[in-house]
């Protein structure tokens, strides 16, 4: 498998309070990779390190086959980037911003830019500094797509946008990916949004990558089990027991959150004298919350 982004032993610290890594991130080429994590978990820092906007304390980064930061400018000819905060020149009009961006990008597609301008309903003469948050989000996505990149790196691209704009932006993204097969690396804390479009996810928490798996195995592997008459000692279960809580009402019933669940594991409960009453699928958001909860349990507790 080839990787559009590959970091090895990446480490970085900002001040005395925040440390990131060591991080081994691998974004498969052609995937739509959702980069999840709560605010302050290190998503934006990881992106900035990956794109050469921050210099790591140690470790290496390769993006679309280019070493970062040594070949950063060659890399940016093939990477479209939508940062967390707007970074365009506010005195330019929309049309001027397009012309400026196109002057630097070798694969700039002026026709696609015009079409997206119409699709997004952006006025050419409006100054960038006068655009609303939603319009700025659309313009940033337009610029990133019209440069025809092999990899799109999107840092919270829909954060703070209303549902209509969010849908427009994501539709444009999906259209581009289905047309070109480009890789997308999209960070967000809006879990449900990524659930619909991503085929890989990576989860960050407190500067560490706590999971990196295909979406289907993440969603299928985490379950909530309703268990009756479970003993205090669970022995050595064939799955990872993430959480164990008292059930709602029925006496002796507990809710277990487990990872790595397979239907053949039912017989484990017979072995410990418990009754498995129900297996409940968790959506990505619930799985994400449970994963973070587990990741934060101190070692040995």
């Amino acid at each position: 498998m080839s990787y559009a982004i590959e970091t090895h032993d990446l480490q970085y610290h900002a001040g005395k309070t925040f440390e990131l890594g060591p991080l081994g991130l691998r974004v498969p080429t052609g995937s739509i990779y959702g980069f999840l994590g709560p605010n302050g978990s290190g998503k934006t820092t990881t992106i900035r390190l990956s794109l050469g906007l921050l210099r790591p304390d140690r470790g290496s980064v390769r993006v679309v086959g280019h070493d970062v930061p040594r070949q950063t400018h060659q890399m940016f000819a093939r990477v479209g980037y939508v940062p967390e905060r707007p970074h365009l020149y506010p005195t330019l009009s929309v049309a001027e911003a397009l012309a400026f961006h196109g002057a630097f990008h070798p694969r700039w597609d002026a026709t696609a830019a015009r079409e997206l301008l119409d699709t997004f309903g952006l006025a050419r003469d409006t100054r960038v500094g006068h655009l609303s948050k939603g319009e700025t989000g659309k313009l940033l996505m337009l610029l990133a797509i019209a440069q025809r990149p092999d990899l799109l790196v999107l840092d919270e691209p829909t954060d703070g946008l209303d549902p209509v704009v969010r849908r427009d932006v994501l539709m444009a993204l999906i259209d581009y990916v289905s047309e070109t097969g480009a890789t997308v690396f999209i960070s967000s804390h809006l879990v449900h949004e990524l659930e619909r479009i991503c085929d890989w996810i990576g989860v960050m928490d407190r500067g560490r990558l706590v999971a990196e798996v295909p979406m289907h195995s993440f969603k299928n592997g985490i379950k909530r089990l309703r268990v009756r008459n479970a003993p205090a000692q669970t022995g050595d279960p064939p799955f990872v027991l993430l959480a164990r809580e008292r059930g709602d009402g029925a006496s002796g019933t507990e809710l277990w959150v487990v990872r790595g669940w397979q239907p053949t594991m039912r017989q484990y409960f017979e072995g410990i004298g418990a009754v498995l009453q129900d297996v409940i699928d968790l959506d990505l958001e619930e799985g994400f919350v449970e994963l973070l909860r587990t990741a934060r349990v101190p070692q040995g507790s």
Partner: protein
Amino acid sequence: MFGAICRVQWKGSAAAVALLAAAAFIVPLLAVQQAGFTAGDFRTWDLVVMLSAVESAGALFPILAIILGLTLSVGAWSADHQADHVYALTLPIPRWHYVLLRFGAGLVLILPVMLAVGLGCAVAVGSIDVPEGLRAYGSSITLRFGLAALVSYAATFALAAGTKRTAATVFGIVLALIAIAMLLDSLGVSANLLDVVANAMFRRPGPFEVLAGPWMLIGV
């Protein structure tokens, strides 16, 4: 690429450049008018007084050049500073190339103001009869103004391109020099530290020598 950068820089600095060009056009006219050349009665001239008036008005040229350099260098980087340089750093060109493009665009914007100085000098000199024994130095003043603006622009561009820490270091050094000079002065030590620094900067072969000395549109 260069055209795109020039357009962005022009958009950010157009008003200031137009204002400075207008001022640059007026300064030569002011110089000849202040000296009394427009009166036409040369018999009563006190040449020393008149040339002194030309020199006084000429002092505005280096001031304009410094303001122009400062305006262009701040204009070159302000938009990038506001966005933490993220946009510039994500363009697919080497960083030195981007810096050169930005610098070059500023140089282009010096030209209209320099042209205004040249026009102003031509109009001012054309409007008077230069007395015998004196000469007009319109072309020299124009070229010198261009060079002075370039020096001012280059110095402030380098400072503006740096981080806040760089700027703080430079200002810190200047303040430390002033403080040391004041301390030595209060102790009765005649080291003339500030004079030494000023001479190194503004006297030949100092980097800012072009800004110092008289700017005589009309001279001997």
